[in-house]
């Protein structure tokens, strides 16, 4: 019985992964984002953050701007793939695939688990592809660091894919979902200390002198901030926040969002 259930989960997972791998449009999105963000934005802004006088730089963090941006671009790729994966839930609902699967002997939570696992695998793949650009960003990491980063990517992907399913259950048309995802992905990304650093050497009141209080607050309550920070910790060896917060936030997101997605999924 157990084996049959696992084969069912495997079947759903395989369907999602195969479909994503064969979708050239999705694959193009997966490479165009890192190329634009790292090659164009990273190089474009790099001169503004480089040193001109020893001891006087605006960007007092132990890496270059392209290195700083690199982990954030991985997260951006994961966010788009994970959240937009939920379009497939709307698709499956509209074309009857979900109905067929839900009348099978598999429990509905396993059906959802298989789908989310598939989406998470695809999102992790899209995040991992960015690691190939590490040479360009002048980042070196060991196999252990690489595997840890991929593990963290998967944890985040699982949480965000579940989050996407929650959104898909509330927005039931393709058009509505497109607007919704853009109003969520980009604000979450820009307020995650992804493209500008909060100087960890500064206290809260000092930071508020550099940035307005509302922006600092938005960054600190945004869970993606801690995902970006966690990946920076693994790949660059530098954290703006205590290192344990990132994995804890991502783990909590994965569990809580999956439970809410399951709750929604079981509703008629």
């Amino acid at each position: 019985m157990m084996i049959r259930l696992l084969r069912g989960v495997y079947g759903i997972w395989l369907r999602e992964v195969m479909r994503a791998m064969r979708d050239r449009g999705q694959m193009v999105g997966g490479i165009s984002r890192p190329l634009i963000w790292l090659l164009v934005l990273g190089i474009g802004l790099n001169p503004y953050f480089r040193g001109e006088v020893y001891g006087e730089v605006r960007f007092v963090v132990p890496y270059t701007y392209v290195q700083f941006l690199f982990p954030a671009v991985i997260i951006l790729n994961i966010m788009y793939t994970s959240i937009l994966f939920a379009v497939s839930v709307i698709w499956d609902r509209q074309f009857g695939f979900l109905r067929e699967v839900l009348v099978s002997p598999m429990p509905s939570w396993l059906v959802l688990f298989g789908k989310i696992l598939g989406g998470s695998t695809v999102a992790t793949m899209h995040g991992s592809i960015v690691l190939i650009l590490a040479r360009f960003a002048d980042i070196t990491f060991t196999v252990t660091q690489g595997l840890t980063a991929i593990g963290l990517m998967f944890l985040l992907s699982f949480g965000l894919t579940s989050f996407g399913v929650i959104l898909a259950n509330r927005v039931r048309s393709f058009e509505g979902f497109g607007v919704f995802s853009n109003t969520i992905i980009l604000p979450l990304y820009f307020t995650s200390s992804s493209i500008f650093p909060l100087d960890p050497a500064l206290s809260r009141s000092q930071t508020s002198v550099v940035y307005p209080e509302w922006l600092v607050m938005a960054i600190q309550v945004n869970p993606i901030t801690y995902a970006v920070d966690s990946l920076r910790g693994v790949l660059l060896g530098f954290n703006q926040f205590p290192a344990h917060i990132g994995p804890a936030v991502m783990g909590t997101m994965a569990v809580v969002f999956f439970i809410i997605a399951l709750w929604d999924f079981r509703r008629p």
Partner: protein
Amino acid sequence: MNGKARLAGSPFRWGPGLINIAVITLIIFAASFLPSDTSLSQLRKSGILKVCAPYDAAPLVTSDPNQPGYDIELLAEAASRLGLRLSINRNPAIGADFNARNWGITRSQCELVAGGVIDTPATRGFLHTVPTDIETGWVMIAKPGDMPALAGSRVGILPGASGLDRTALSRVLRAENVDTSLIRAPAQLRESIENDTIDFGITDRFSAARIADGLNIVWLTHPDLPRYSLAIGGWKGDSSLHRALRKQFGDMRDDGTLRAIRDRYALGEPESG
């Protein structure tokens, strides 16, 4: 049976997806070889690699043309392999003040900084560092014989101008209830040790080596006082130059050049404390 049905269940069903993955991997891999800045190409145009260095930070930089120092020989060899000529810009402020801002080094004066740059996160906030094979850190220096225990002892501190973490040292010494006195010059430290005014001295590795004749030097080992690699400093953002330099250092390590230069300057390690 149609084609799709034949593919189902066979390993070939992965084919189209894997081809897509291979194509995007190839595109990204090719993009990773694009130069990220113009620092190296500009240098190749000018043909000169300018290095800011102190007048004397032996054994890393010296004023002796026959033995110009470990850092200088390392950079001369790397520059020659890159097809560049090395030009040293001596700066008297380096080594006289531990605050790098007071050295007044600008991008127009030099592409690299040599002669005691320590590869710490604080340094990396201001410079891109390319580590060399040499380590530094706090050492204890005392009369020959057993090194006295740290706790409760009388210690002379010669902080020097190195970029080691003075705050961490001060924290450790306070925690160990050490009676400290500040020493201004290497000669004064040696005199204090010989006169038994202090039980031992603490300073950076190379300052200790200058006055070590007949004295015992060991690393000051403490979890809060790590040893750091020495490095060549470069401007943040000049990634293509630093990558080329790192590659040259790697090649020199592989073909034994690095070891030969190190041996010429007798850069042995102090004992472990």
